[in-house]
Structures are given as structure tokens and as C-alpha cells.
């Protein structure tokens, strides 16, 4: 589904990604872990098409297509979704309208018709249940005054509405208490299907108890320095990253 080869990227003068190789197949969950500042969010943002990052080399193919050639909205239409580490606040635009615009844009891009506000409410009713969210959240401005946990839930709500093929979750678990973590993780699990895949960026093994990964990768200094299975996450939880960094230098 996703094939990243020798991807390098920079922001301004700073080289951040220094040759990423990663291959994700339908049905798989990949966890990406790694120290602060190692480039995890950069990778996620580059995949979503953030204009602040310049891809300086390598390729990314998504379902056979050159992902890097597509505009951010086209990537979304193809089924790429990024849950932001820091969701953006949009004053003045209601969450309901935001979600409906996104939902309709997606339908139109996929050759369907727009739904009217009443039909959309029916869609929402079911999606709100997935993230155990109150519909009062819909009439508020997007993410304005939302608590950290509410923002993360709202990201998963958007994911539920858009039903992506590839979901990239950037620290969706950070800062959540255990109940919120459970809701978010279960939301993600409910949306899993054999034909979709997820990349889960996290610092915490506890998330991986809920969303069980097929592969775990360690990103450090802009490179994947180690890949393994679930057990790698447990090992990292226990020992931290230093031993890996030492090995990588050696």
C-alpha cells in the first residue's frame, strides 16, 4: 500500500529526514517510536503534504501512485489521513460544518454526491458513538477551547467520518488519561479493516497494548535505526533508546 524509499526531507536549512525506508501493506499496523526531535512528526507531515517541508530525495508510492506529486487534499481523497500531534484550532468554523465539508469533499472526489445537513446528522450520530463524544462538540468552533483529550478524540472522529485507507496517528495517545486512551484506541480498532492500514507514532508502549502493532520501528536522527515486532516496544519501554543509539553509532 505504502512504499517509502530513501526519503530525505528538510525544513529551511535543516535536514530532518535522512533516508527513510518503510513499507506498509494493507491490514498492517506499524508503530514508530523514537526520541524527541528525531523526525517522527516530520515524516507524518511530509506524507500528508505539509508545505513547510521540502522533500529533497527519495520516493513515496501509495497504491502505486507517486504520493509526493499530489496536493494535500488529493492525498486525503486517495485515503491518506493524518491525526495531528497538535490539532489546529479554527475560530469561527463549526466542527459540524468542518466535518461535513470534509465528508462532502471526499464524496465528490470519489465520484459521489454531497449530503445535505440533515443526512449528515444521521452519519454523525453513529460516528460520535465510536469516540464517545457528545454532539454539543459539533456546534463549537473546530478545536477551540477543547481540552487536550477532546482534541485527540476529535481527530479520531474526523478519521471515523473520512474512513481512510492509511491512517497516520501522530502521538494521538500523548497526554491522555487511561479512560481517554481506551476510547481513542478502541475507536481506532473499530475502524480497522483488512484493507486499511495504520502508522502509529507514539512514545508509550501502553497504547500498543490496545492497538497491537505488527511492526515497531525506531526513528532516530532522521533514520529508522531498528525495526522489529511488538517485543521491541516492550524492550524500549524497559531500556529506553540509549542502547540503540550506541549500537547505531558503533
Amino acid at each position: 500500500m505504502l512504499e517509502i524509499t530513501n526519503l530525505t526531507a528538510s525544513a529551511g536549512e535543516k535536514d530532518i529526514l535522512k533516508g527513510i525506508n518503510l513499507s506498509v501493506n494493507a491490514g498492517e499496523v506499524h508503530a514508530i517510536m523514537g526520541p524527541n526531535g528525531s523526525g517522527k512528526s516530520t515524516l507524518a507531515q511530509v506524507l500528508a503534504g505539509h508545505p513547510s517541508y521540502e522533500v529533497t530525495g527519495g520516493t513515496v508510492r501509495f497504491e502505486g501512485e507517486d504520493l509526493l506529486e499530489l496536493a494535500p487534499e488529493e492525498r486525503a481523497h486517495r485515503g491518506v489521513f493524518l491525526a495531528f500531534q497538535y490539532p489546529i484550532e479554527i475560530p469561527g468554523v463549526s466542527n459540524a460544518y468542518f466535518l461535513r465539508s470534509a465528508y462532502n469533499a471526499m464524496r465528490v472526489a470519489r465520484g459521489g454526491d454531497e449530503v445535505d445537513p440533515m443526512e449528515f446528522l444521521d452519519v454523525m450520530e453513529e460516528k460520535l458513538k465510536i469516540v464517545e463524544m457528545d454532539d454539543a462538540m459539533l456546534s463549537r468552533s473546530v478545536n477551540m477551547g477543547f481540552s487536550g483529550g477532546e482534541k485527540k478524540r476529535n481527530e479520531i472522529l474526523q478519521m471515523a467520518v473520512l474512513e481512510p485507507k492509511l491512517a497516520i496517528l501522530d502521538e494521538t495517545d500523548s497526554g491522555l488519561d487511561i479512560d481517554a486512551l481506551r476510547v481513542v484506541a478502541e475507536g481506532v480498532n473499530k475502524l480497522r479493516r483488512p484493507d486499511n492500514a495504520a502508522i502509529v507514532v507514539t512514545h508509550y508502549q501502553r497504547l500498543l497494548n490496545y492497538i497491537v502493532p505488527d511492526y515497531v520501528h525506531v526513528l532516530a536522527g532522521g533514520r529508522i535505526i531498528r525495526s522489529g515486532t511488538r517485543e521491541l516496544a516492550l524492550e524500549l519501554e524497559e531500556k529506553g533508546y540509549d542502547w540503540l543509539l550506541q549500537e547505531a553509532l558503533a
Partner: protein
Amino acid sequence: MTIPHWQAAFAARAGGDEPRWLAPLRQSAMASFAALGFPTRALEDWHYTSLSSIADVPYTIGSGASSTTVADLTPYMINADWPTIVLLNGRWSPALSSLDSLPGGVLVLDLATAWREQPAMVQQHLGTVAVSEHAMTSLNTALMQDGVVVVVAKDVVSNTPIHILHVADAAAEGAARFPRTLIIAERSSKVTLLESFVGLADVAYFTNHVAEVVVGDNATVNHMKIQRESESATHVSTTEVHQARDSHYVNFSMAMGATLSRTNVYTVLDGENCGATLNGLYLGKGTQHTDHQTRIEHAQPNCFSRELYKGVLDDASHAVFNGKVYVHPVAQKTDGKQSNHTLLLSPDARIDTKPQLEIFADDVKCTHGATVGRMDEAGLFYMKSRGVPSETARRLLTYAFAADVLETIENETVKHALEQLTLERYAGSAVHPVIVARKG
């Protein structure tokens, strides 16, 4: 040539059936205009806006026959059931106006009828509220030919807006008009007024409007203005307000038309426990120049004022916001808050924002803030990453920026009409107006 042109126009007036007290008022106004001339940038209050572009234009006074019908005005009515006075090219048009739904206790008269039938009332107030030393106000007083007088009797509460629709059609080309509005809200009354300025044809003309508002003890006046003149027109409008104790004055100014516009809103809080709220929205495009000057004079203790102006400027448009707040030494416990926020959509658009607080009392709470920003790129990317096309996302964010000040409009119908106008400009017709998040 400019001053002699207007002096000649003044001399040529047929003032035959006017009350005698009016003549000296007009004469001194004409003398004052002749001394001041059209404002130039040399004046502090006109630092960013000059009327020199029209100072030499030999505008005619009054327009020829026009064929505008009620049907032509339908798009501008907002609500056809409201009492509506149409001033067509500066003249009250009985055929286009309809006052059937006027509530009891509210008197609406044209200027000439008012000074014939309510001479004492008109003489007491006309020219006593709009007293700023402004050449344009003087010129209006000297040459005002028609207008609207609204008198709301004591204790009468009227929530249905009275709509004063100033229409310029093709016959307005090359003409100047000097409409005058006088609003008198007596003790404990409440009234809502909407003044619209619309241009039906893309012709050049000059509107120089003055409104005087007398807000009696414990009265409330809700006064809205929509300026959508022809994009070739020049528009100057001055609203001056006098507030007695326990009164409230609420003004909203929407400016989106004219090639050059200047809107002045001045209020004097001249009794204890008053409140004034002055809000507005300006939308500029092309090479439009849109200027607002507000002045809130706190002359007595324990009053509050609230001010929020927002603007969206595209292309090479230029806007000015100058908000003056003057707090007299006796006006202790004044609570004033002013903000001005502008979104620039193009590198060539420009805003000059100038808060001006002059505070002579020591126990007051006055704040002001101004921001000038560009499109929120983070918000834009966020929307695009959810599949919303770039152009739609841009329009949506622009609309949302502007719409939040429209939220402050109390009358739902007017609010929705202005939301719709803003939507049409920025969001395209495909967007449904429920996009605005309701507060609370």
C-alpha cells in the same frame, strides 16, 4: 473652483417654504464649509483619507427622472414587511416607501413635513447633535434637501427595524446628495433602525449623509448601517449621538461598496450608567478605500463602551480604522474596550489602524488591541489534509474571520442578511450559512 461651486449651489437653493430658524443654521454651516473646504491629508482626522479626488468635481444637486420600481429594490429590502422609507437619489419616494407596518408611538416623517408639523421638536434637535467641526457635516447642513425624522415616544418599545433605504440609480450619475437622518428616542423607549446605502448602477456620485441620534434617559437605540454603494461612488457618512443617563446606543457599520468611503460614528455618553457598543465590518477589494473613524466620549461616570471592528482586505484595497476614546476627568469607573482586527488577503492590501485613547480620569478600565494578519496557513493545511479543496478552505476561513463580528448583531434577520452578503463575497453560493459556530 470647488468652494465657489458649492456657494453657487447654495445661493441657487429654493428655500422658500422652510422655517425661518433654519436659514441662519444653513448660512453658518455654509460659511463654515467655505472656511474649511474639502478635507485633505493635512488634517489630523483625515491623515489616511483624502477627499481631494472629488473636491474639484462639479456635482449637480438633485437628479433627473428615474424609473426605479419596487421590484428593482426587492433584493435590498431585507424584509419587505418592515416599515421602509426609500430615499431615491436623495429624495423621499412615497411610491417606493411603505409605512403601513409602523408601530403606534413611532412617528416617521420626511424632513419638510417634520419641520412643518413638528417644528418645536425639529428645531430643538436638528443641528445640535452633529456639532463636530467637520466640513462634510457643514456641507450637509447647508445643503440637506431631504431626510427622515424618526420620533419614538416615551416608553414605546419597537423591535421591528425601520429601514431607511438610500438608493442611487443610473440617474444619480454626476450628482451629490445630502440626506439627513434625525432620530429621537424619548425616555425609556427602544427602537431599531437600519440605514442602507445601495447603488443600482455603476455610476459615479457623491453621498454625504449625516445622522443625528438623541437617546433619551433609559432609552435604547439599535442603529445599523449597510454601505453597498456603487463601486464608482464616493460615500461620506457621519453619525453623531447624544446619550442621556441609563441609555444604550448600539451601532453596527458594514462597509463593502463605494470606491472611497468614510464612515464616522461619534457618541457622547452624557449621563451616568450609559453603554455604547460600536461594531463594524469592512470588506475591501480592487482599489477600494474604506475608512472608519469612531469617537466615544465618556463625559460622565460609570459608563461602558465596547468596540469591535473587523476587516477583510483583498487586492490593492486600503482601509483605515481610527478609534478615539476620550474620558473626561469626571468620568470615573469608565469601562472601555476596543479592538480592531484585519485580515489581509493580498500582499498589496493595506490597513492603517490607529487606536487613540485620551484618558483624563484616574479610576478607569480602558483597553485596546489591534491585529493585522494574513491567512492562517496552519488552518488552511489542516482543512486541506481533510480533503477540503484549497479554494474552498481559503474562502471558509475568510468567511469565518469576518462572520464572528456579525454574530454581535441582535436582529436575526439583519444578521443573516449580512452573513449572506459576506458569504456571497467569500464563500461562493455553495456554502450554507450554518457554518458559523454559535457561541456558548
